C-alpha cells in the first residue's frame, strides 16, 4: 500500500458510515438472527477498531514538523456554488481525530448495557463517528457545516430513543439550543461567502480562500463573529448557554454521555479556533475579554453548581462546564502556551470525563440509581472500582503527573499573561474542583457500606476493565510525558498565529482604505428614512475588488 496516496481521511470519515449501513441493511444483524445483539456489537467493535487502527497508522505518517495540512484530499462537490470536498489534517485537528477514534471502540464495548434496538444504537454511534471526524477534517466551510449538522441527528436519536425518563425534554432542549446556534452560523457563512463573491467575482467555501481574500469591515466582522461564537459557545457550552448539557447528559445512555463529553463538546472549541478566530481576528480580539469573563464565570459557576448536585451524573456534567471554561479561557488568551494548554485540556477532558461517565454507568447498570445518597462505603465492597474512580477523580482535579495538570497549568500560566485578574479568579476553580470531586468520592466510596442496599454490588468486570485500562494508561502517559502530543501541535500553532496576525493586518489595511467612507454612508443611512447605500457603496466595493 502506498501511504502517500492512501486516502486516510476519507477512510476515517466514511468507513464508520459504511459500517452503519452494513449493520442496518444486512439481514444477519436483524434481531431475529442476532437475538442478543452479540454479532452487531462485534461488528461495530470491529469497524471502530479498524478506524482506530487506520488513525494510528496515519499518526505514524504524520509529519510533526509540517505546519500545513497533511493527507489532504480535494474534489469538486457542487462546483456551481464553489463547494468542494476538501479535507486535511494538521496539528490542531490531529489529536482530536485520534481522541474520537480512540473513544469509539470503548463506547461500543460499553454498549453491552444497552438492550433495546441495539442495532440502531450502534449504527447511530457509527454515523456519529463519521460526522465527528468529518467535522474535524473538513476545510470547506460548507462541508464543515454539513458534518456539523450531521452530528445532531444521531445524537438526537441516541438520547431520544435510548435515554432516560425525561429524554424527550432533554432532546428538545439539546436540539433547540444547538439549532439556534448553527442557524446563525449558517447565515454568517453565507454572508461571508457572499462578500467574497462580491469582491472576487466567484463563489468558494474553502476556508483558506475565504480567510485570505474576504475583506470585511470591523462592524461586519463583529456581527459575523458573534454568530459563529454563539454557535460554538452553545456547543462548548459556555455559560450561560450551558443548561442543555446537564439534562442531555443525565438522560443520555452511558455511551452517549461519553461521546458527548468526550468529543462533541470539543467541536465548539475546535470551531472557534479553526473558523471563528482566523476569519474574524479583530472581532475575536474585541470579544476576547468578554468571552474570557464568561469562561471564568463558567469555571467558578460550574464548580459551585456541581457541588450542589445530588445526582452523580449531573455533578460530572456541571464539572464539564467548569473544565471547558478553562479551555475557552486558554483559547481566548491567544498565546502559544495558553492555546497549547487549551488544546491539551480538550484531550484530557475527553479522557477523564469520559472515564467518569463510564464509571457512573457501571454503578447505574447495577443499581439503577445515580443518586449519591444511594451509595456510600463502596470502597470496601468494590476496591477495583474505587481505585479507578480515585485515579480519574485525581485526573479531573488536575493532580500533577496526571494529564489534567499539564493542561490546566499551561492554560493558567499562559492566560495569566493576557488576563491576570480573570486567571486569578479562574484559579479558584482548582480549589472548588477538589471540593466537589472529593465530596462525591467521599459520599459514594467512604463510610459504612449499606449491606441491604449495596451488599450485592459486584466489582468491575473484565469487559468494563477493558474500557478503563486504555483511559488509565492515557491519564498517566499524558501527565508524565506530554511532549509527543505537544510537539505535534506546535508547528501548526506557530504558523496559525502568524497567519492570523497577517489577516488582522490585512483587514486593518482594508479598513483604512475602504471602510471609513462606508461608515459615513452608514451614518447617513440612519439619518435618512431610506438608504441610498446602493449607489454610494458600490464604487467602494469595486475598488476593493480591484485592489
Amino acid at each position, binding site marked *: 500500500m502506498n501511504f502517500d496516496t492512501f486516502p486516510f481521511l476519507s477512510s476515517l470519515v466514511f468507513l464508520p458510515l459504511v459500517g452503519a449501513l452494513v449493520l442496518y441493511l444486512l439481514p444477519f444483524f436483524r434481531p431475529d438472527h442476532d437475538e442478543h445483539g452479540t454479532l452487531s456489537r462485534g461488528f461495530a467493535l470491529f469497524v471502530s477498531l479498524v478506524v482506530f487502527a487506520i488513525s494510528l497508522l496515519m499518526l505514524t505518517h504524520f509529519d510533526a514538523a509540517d505546519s500545513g495540512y497533511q493527507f489532504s484530499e480535494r474534489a469538486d462537490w457542487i462546483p456551481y456554488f464553489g463547494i468542494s470536498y476538501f479535507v486535511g489534517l494538521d496539528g490542531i485537528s490531529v489529536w482530536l481525530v485520534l481522541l474520537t477514534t480512540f473513544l469509539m471502540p470503548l463506547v461500543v464495548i460499553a454498549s453491552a448495557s444497552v438492550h433495546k434496538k441495539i442495532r440502531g444504537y450502534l449504527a447511530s454511534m457509527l454515523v456519529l463517528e463519521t460526522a465527528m471526524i468529518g467535522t474535524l477534517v473538513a476545510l470547506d466551510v460548507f462541508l464543515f457545516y454539513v458534518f456539523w449538522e450531521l452530528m445532531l441527528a444521531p445524537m438526537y436519536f441516541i438520547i431520544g430513543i435510548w435515554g432516560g425518563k425525561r429524554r424527550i425534554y432533554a432532546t428538545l432542549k439539546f*436540539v433547540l439550543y444547538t439549532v439556534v446556534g448553527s442557524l446563525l452560523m449558517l*447565515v454568517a457563512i453565507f454572508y461571508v461567502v457572499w462578500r467574497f463573491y462580491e469582491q472576487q467575482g466567484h463563489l468558494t467555501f474553502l476556508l483558506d480562500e475565504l480567510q485570505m481574500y474576504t475583506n470585511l469591515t470591523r462592524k461586519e466582522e463583529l456581527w459575523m463573529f458573534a454568530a459563529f461564537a454563539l454557535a460554538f459557545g452553545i456547543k462548548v457550552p459556555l455559560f450561560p448557554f450551558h443548561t442543555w448539557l446537564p439534562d442531555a447528559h443525565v438522560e443520555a445512555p452511558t455511551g452517549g454521555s461519553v461521546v458527548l463529553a468526550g468529543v462533541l463538546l470539543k467541536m465548539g472549541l475546535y470551531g472557534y479556533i479553526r473558523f471563528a478566530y482566523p476569519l474574524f481576528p479583530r472581532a475575536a480580539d474585541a470579544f476576547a475579554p468578554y468571552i474570557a469573563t464568561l469562561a471564568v464565570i463558567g469555571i467558578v459557576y460550574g464548580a459551585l453548581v456541581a457541588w450542589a*448536585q445530588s445526582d452523580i451524573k449531573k455533578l460530572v456534567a456541571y464539572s464539564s462546564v467548569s473544565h471547558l471554561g478553562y479551555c475557552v479561557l486558554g483559547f481566548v488568551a491567544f498565546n502559544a502556551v495558553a492555546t*497549547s494548554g487549551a488544546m491539551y485540556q480538550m484531550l484530557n477532558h475527553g479522557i477523564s470525563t469520559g472515564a467518569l461517565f463510564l464509571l457512573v454507568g457501571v454503578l447505574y447498570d447495577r443499581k439503577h440509581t445515580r443518586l449519591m445518597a444511594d451509595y456510600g462505603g463502596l470502597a470496601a465492597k468494590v476496591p477495583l472500582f474505587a481505585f479507578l474512580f480515585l485515579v480519574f477523580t485525581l485526573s479531573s482535579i488536575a493532580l500533577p503527573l496526571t494529564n489534567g495538570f499539564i493542561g490546566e497549568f499551561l492554560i493558567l500560566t499562559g492566560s495569566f499573561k493576557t488576563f491576570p485578574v480573570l486567571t486569578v479568579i479562574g484559579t479558584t476553580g482548582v480549589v472548588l474542583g477538589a471540593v466537589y470531586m*472529593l465530596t462525591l468520592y467521599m459520599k459514594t466510596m467512604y*463510610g459504612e457500606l449499606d449491606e441491604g442496599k449495596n451488599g450485592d454490588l459486584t466489582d468491575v468486570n473484565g469487559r468494563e476493565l477493558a474500557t478503563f485500562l486504555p483511559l488509565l494508561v492515557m491519564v498517566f502517559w499524558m501527565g508524565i*510525558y506530554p511532549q509527543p502530543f*505537544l*510537539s505535534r501541535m506546535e508547528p501548526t500553532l506557530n504558523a496559525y498565529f502568524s497567519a492570523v496576525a497577517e489577516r488582522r493586518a490585512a483587514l486593518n489595511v482594508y479598513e483604512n482604505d475602504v471602510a471609513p467612507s462606508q461608515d459615513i454612508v452608514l451614518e447617513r443611512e440612519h439619518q435618512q428614512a431610506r438608504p441610498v*447605500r446602493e449607489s454610494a457603496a458600490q464604487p467602494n466595493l469595486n475598488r476593493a475588488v480591484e485592489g
Partner: protein
Amino acid sequence: MEQNGVTALGYIPLFPLIGSVLAFIIGRSKRDAAGWIATLASAMAFAVVVALVMAMPEEAEYYYRAFTWFSVGGFTLDFAFRFDHLTAVMCLVVTGIGSLIHLYSVAYMAEDEGRHRFFAYLNLFMFSMLLLVLGANLLVLFVGWEGVGLCSYLLIGFWFKNLSYAGAGRKAFVVNRIGDAGFLFGMFMLYRQFDTLDFAELAQAISVNASPELLPLYFVVALCLFVGATGKSAQIPLFVWLPDAMAGPTPVSALIHAATMVTAGVYMMARLNFLFDLAPQAQAIVAIVAVFTAMVAALTALTQNDIKKVLAYSTVSQLGFMFMAAGAGVYWVAVFHLVTHAFFKACLFLGAGSVIHGCHHEQDMRHMGGLWSKMPITAATYGISTLAIAGIYPLSGYFSKHAILAALEGGHNPALEGLLELLVPMASVTAFLTAFYMTRSFAMTFLGSYRGHAHPHESPLRMTAPLIVLAGLALVGGLWLGGTLPHYLAPVLGSPAEHGHESIIEGLMHSWIGIAGIGVGLLCYTSLSQIPATIYRVIGPLSTLSLNKFYFDELYAAVVVKPLEAIARVLFRVVDQGMIDGAVNGTAAVVDVSGEVARSTQTGQVRHYAFFMFVAALLMLFLFVFAGRV
C-alpha cells in the same frame, strides 16, 4: 560545579515509587510482604542519599535531568533534580526518619487488613516528598507538593469506613489546595516576569534584577508562596486541617504530619531565600504569622486531652518557630529546628503510638497514667523528647530553639522594627507554654497511677528500636548539628554569624524558660493537681476558648463553608433552573405553540425544526443582505 547529570539522583525517588507499586500488588495476596517491601525501598533510597552525601565534594551540587517534561511556545520545563547541601539535609531526614517509621509501622500495622494499601501510600508519600526536595525547579517541587498532599489525604482517611476520618482527609486536601492556589499564583507571576521556573535561573535573574521597581513583585510573589506554605505547613489561617489529620494511623502522624511533609513550607522558603531576602515586608509578615501561630497553637495544646491532639497542636506551634527563623531571614536556623524537631517530634508521635498500641487504642490521656512502670522504654524515650522540645540544655531542641530566639531578636529586618518588643516576648512565652503542655502530657500519660481499664504492655522491639534511635538523636542531635550545620548549609543559605561557645552552666541558665515550664507542669500535674482545676475555674472562658481550639473551625464554617454551600444551592436552584432554564423553556413554549399549528399539518418535531431553521436562515440572510449591511 558538576553538571554532568548524576543518574543516582533519579534513583532516590524511584525506589519508593517502585516500592509503592510492588507493596500494593504483592501485598494484595501476601499482606505481610507489603511492609517489608516498603521498608526496603525506603532504606535503599536512604542508602543512595548517604552514599551521595559521603561522595559529594565540598561546595558541590549535583544535577540530573530525567527528561524534558514539556516544551511549548518557548516555555521549556525539564523534569530535573538538583542535589545541594540543603537537599542533602532534607533527603537525609526524609529517608532516614522515613525508614525508621516504616520499620515501626511493620509492627504497628501488623493486624490491619488494608496494610498493603497503607505501605503503598507511605512509599508513594516518600516518592512525592523526595520529588519536592529534589526538584530543580518550582514545578517539580510543586509536583511533590501536591503529591504529598494526596498521600496525606489518602492516609488520613485510611480507615475510610469512619466517615469523619474520611472527612478529615478531604478537609486536609481542600485546605491544602487553597494554599496551593496561592503557590500557583506565585509561579504564574515568576514565569510572567522571568520566563523560567528553574531555581538556578531564577536566582540568577533575581540577583541581576534587584531594581526597586521589581520589589513590589517580589513582595507579592513571596506572599503568595507563603500562602502555599501556610497550607502545607499548617500556619494561621490554614492550619485547621492538621489537628484533624490525627485521624490517620499514628506512624503517619509521625512521618507526614510532624517530621517531613509539614516542613515543606520551611524548605520552600529556604530554597527561595534569594527571593524572600528581597521582600523584607513579606518576611516580616511571615514572622508575625509564625509567632501568632506558635502562641495560639500552644495555648490550644494546653487543654487537649487526646494525646495525639496535644502533639498535633505542638507541631503547629513548632512549625511556627521554624517560620520565625525563616521570617527573620536566618534560614539555616529554620532548617536546624526542622531537623531537631523531626527527631523529637517523630519520637513523641511514635511514643504516643506505642502508648495507644499498648493501651488498646486508647487516646484519651485521662484514661492513662502510671505507664512509666508498664512501658519503660516508651516512657524514657518520650521523656527525653519532652526535655528536648522543652529546650533543656544540652538536648537538641535547646540549641535550635535558642538559635531561633536569638535570630528573631538579632534580626535586622527593618520591617520588623518596633514589632520585636512584642514578638520576642511572645515567642519566649510560647517556649514556656511548650515546656508546660509537654510536661502535662508526659505526666498525665506516664506518671501517677493508671486510670484506664486495659492491660497496658510495652511494645515489641520493632517499635521500640526506632524510638531509641530517635531519642538518641533528640538527645545529641543539637550538640552535633549546631556546630556543623551552619557551615554545611553555607553554600546554599549563606554564611551565618559566628557564635561563641557556651559552657554547661551558661547553657543550663539559658534553659530557664524550659526548666520553669517543666517545673510548673510537674507541680500542677503530679503533686498539686488542684492547681489546674482552680486555674480553669478562675479563667473559665479562656480555657473554654482553648478547649474549643479558639473556634477556628466554627468560624470558617460560618464565614466560608456554609455561605458558599448556600450560594452553590442558590446558583443551581435559582439561577440555573429558574432564570436560565426558565428563559429557555419560555422560548421552547413559544415554539411549542407554533408546533401545535405545525402538527395539524402532520409535521413531526424534527422536520418542524428543520423547517424553522431554513425559514429563519433565509429571513436572516435577507436581513443581512438586503436590509442594510451590518
